[in-house]
């Protein structure tokens, strides 16, 4: 028998669910002091998330996609990127975006039904939230192609979910990244569910990381609730991308601790027991335990920081709540650089109708 090809996919985990190390940290791992700001960022994200859900529940926000449980993955991805890199998120990775300068108020504006949320405070070249699943992956690949053609030292990073890994766009992105050897990182955030469809129903593939083999990319699976593993996975992929070795697919194993969105009711399709079990692997708890063991964090600090987070988020919420609705002409003004005559007539009619009503 002759062998055409063999492959091996590595799994990275350093910090176990109980907050102790299960493997030696890599030399590049951050120290306790270095990782602390990221932990604090995770707490900020979790604070924001809870408040956004509450806002929705009281009718002050539209449908909102929570990120509860994804904090280590999201923050780790954001931390690994440079401002000049490009990020093409789905609709959930606020933790990564906050690291890039996007503000909570931007998130709220978007889910609050206002396009200005996407004219956000982050890098002007970053992609907007993307609702059509996984289409953003190809935009990242296109960006990476642009970077390569222009000889720029920039990496395109994109995220999709376990569900999104079934989407043909993800394959297209992976395949083109391989064909052109692009500086591209496909993050597959496997939180176990795509609305009501469990991971195992999406694909017969043993891992989602191996989706990358179809395009000849470097594949890695990491514990997405372990910030050290996330950072190390991203570090390796970034190094490959920047050195011209090409693209990577990283599967982050995490869990969606909330409903899919506030419009969803996960009790219809998901066992409580599973969620309870997932909480034992919460990314926050384990890092808090570790940091405390290192003497880098304590309850008082946590309390103070959580209060600070509350204040910061409330300020953002107020900015959102106080924002004025766009004037009616806003729906015409951003369609074309040079709006055609008929459209200007419709615009005038809409303004007139507005004045009448």
């Amino acid at each position: 028998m002759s062998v055409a090809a063999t492959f091996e996919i590595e799994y990275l985990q350093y910090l176990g669910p109980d907050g102790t190390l299960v493997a030696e940290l890599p030399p590049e791992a951050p120290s306790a002091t270095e990782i602390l700001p990221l932990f604090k960022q995770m707490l900020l994200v979790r604070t924001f998330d809870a408040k956004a859900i509450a806002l929705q529940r009281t009718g002050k926000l539209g449908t909102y996609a929570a990120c509860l449980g994804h904090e280590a993955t999201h923050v780790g991805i954001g931390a690994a990127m440079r401002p000049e890199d490009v990020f093409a998120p789905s609709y959930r990775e606020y933790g990564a975006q906050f690291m890039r300068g996007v503000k909570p108020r931007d998130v709220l504006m978007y889910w609050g039904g206002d396009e200005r949320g996407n004219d956000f405070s982050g890098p002007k070249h970053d992609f907007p939230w993307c609702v059509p699943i996984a289409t953003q992956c190809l935009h990242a690949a296109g960006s990476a192609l642009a970077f390569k053609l222009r000889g720029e030292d920039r990496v395109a990073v994109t995220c999709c979910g376990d569900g999104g890994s079934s989407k043909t766009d993800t394959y297209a992105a992976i395949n083109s990244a391989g064909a052109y050897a692009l500086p591209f990182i496909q993050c597959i955030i496997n939180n176990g569910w795509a609305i009501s469809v469990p991971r195992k129903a999406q694909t017969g593939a043993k891992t989602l990381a191996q989706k990358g083999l179809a395009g000849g990319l470097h594949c890695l699976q990491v514990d997405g609730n372990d910030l050290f593993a996330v950072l190390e996975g991203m570090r390796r992929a970034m190094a490959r991308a920047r050195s011209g070795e090409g693209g990577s697919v990283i599967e982050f194993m995490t869990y969606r601790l909330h409903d899919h969105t506030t419009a969803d009711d996960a009790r219809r399709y998901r066992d409580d027991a599973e969620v309870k079990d997932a909480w034992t692997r919460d990314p926050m708890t384990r890092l808090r335990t570790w940091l405390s063991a290192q003497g880098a964090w304590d309850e008082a600090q946590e309390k103070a920081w959580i209060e600070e987070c509350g204040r910061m988020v409330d300020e953002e919420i107020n900015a959102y709540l106080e924002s004025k609705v766009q004037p009616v002409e806003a729906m015409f003004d951003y369609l074309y650089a040079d709006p055609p005559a008929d459209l200007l007539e419709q615009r005038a009619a809409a303004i007139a109708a507005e004045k009448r009503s």
Partner: protein
Amino acid sequence: MSAAAKKDAAPAAITLIEAITQALAYEMRNDDSVVVLGEDVGVNGGVFRATAGLQAEFGDQRVIDTPLDETTIAGLTVGMAAQGMKPVAEAQFDGFVYPMLDHVICHAARFRYRTRGRLTCPMVLRVPWGGGIRAPEHHSEANEALFTNVPGLRVVLPSSPARAYGLLLAAIREPDPVIFMEPKRIYRQYKELVPDDGEALPLDVCFVLRDGTDVTLVTWGAQVKETLEAAEALAKDGISAEVIDVATLTPLDFATIAESVAKTGRCVIVHEAPKTAGFGGEIAARLAEECMYDLLAPVERVTGYDTHIPLFRLEMKYLPSVEKIVAAAKRTIAAG
């Protein structure tokens, strides 16, 4: 219909979305080859609950969750239909239908034609359609015009629980592919008695919902409600409006519209899709071709603007309103 079925068919007041579920369940009982597939249609019963309870009744071999990919859904559906099943596929929202177009246009609409009738494609694609529910981006599109220039399809858009039930049954029984767009804004707007009697409605007629003599208001989907309200308002001003629910856009029953306009001499077409090249244009064009001598006034279109439906803070300003319809109707009266 069997006596037992008749007995079961005690009418109940149900919403449009319940009428969809009722039709699906009826036809799944009636015809073993009918299967339902899509994202979250199984245990979750669909994000709009259109398939609620179906997997419990018919099992996961008839109500099938798919991987998250619309190309996959469309392609599998075409393959199954060509091999003798009657798949009813769900697109989760209108804005996610685009990756399905290749299989719908190149294959579903062509199998009979391409093979001279050897293979056919008896499938239904259900598409929750349109705006007005304060949904996120891409959840509010009125994109029926994607399909109306494609030969070989039927494009159906019900506007009441009873019509949803009867038209969906017809769509499933139809030997050719049907795009069945469901106005999600009125999914739960009101209830109506819809006997579960398995009676299909015809796919080749427009429905005259209100008789009138002064102006014909032509519309479909969610706007039927606004249009009927507009007719009511016009009546208060002594203007008698006939209201037509097109229901099946293609193939179009233009005769019913022409007959009405022959009587009223005026026509206002109402739809929420953008105006330019929206399906309203086709109806106005037929009027310009075939009813010019009947027209007492220029045709009017009350439509979405030629821009994207905005996110929900502004979306109601985008959609046709009772006021806009009334104003247009009055313009036609004033014109002649």
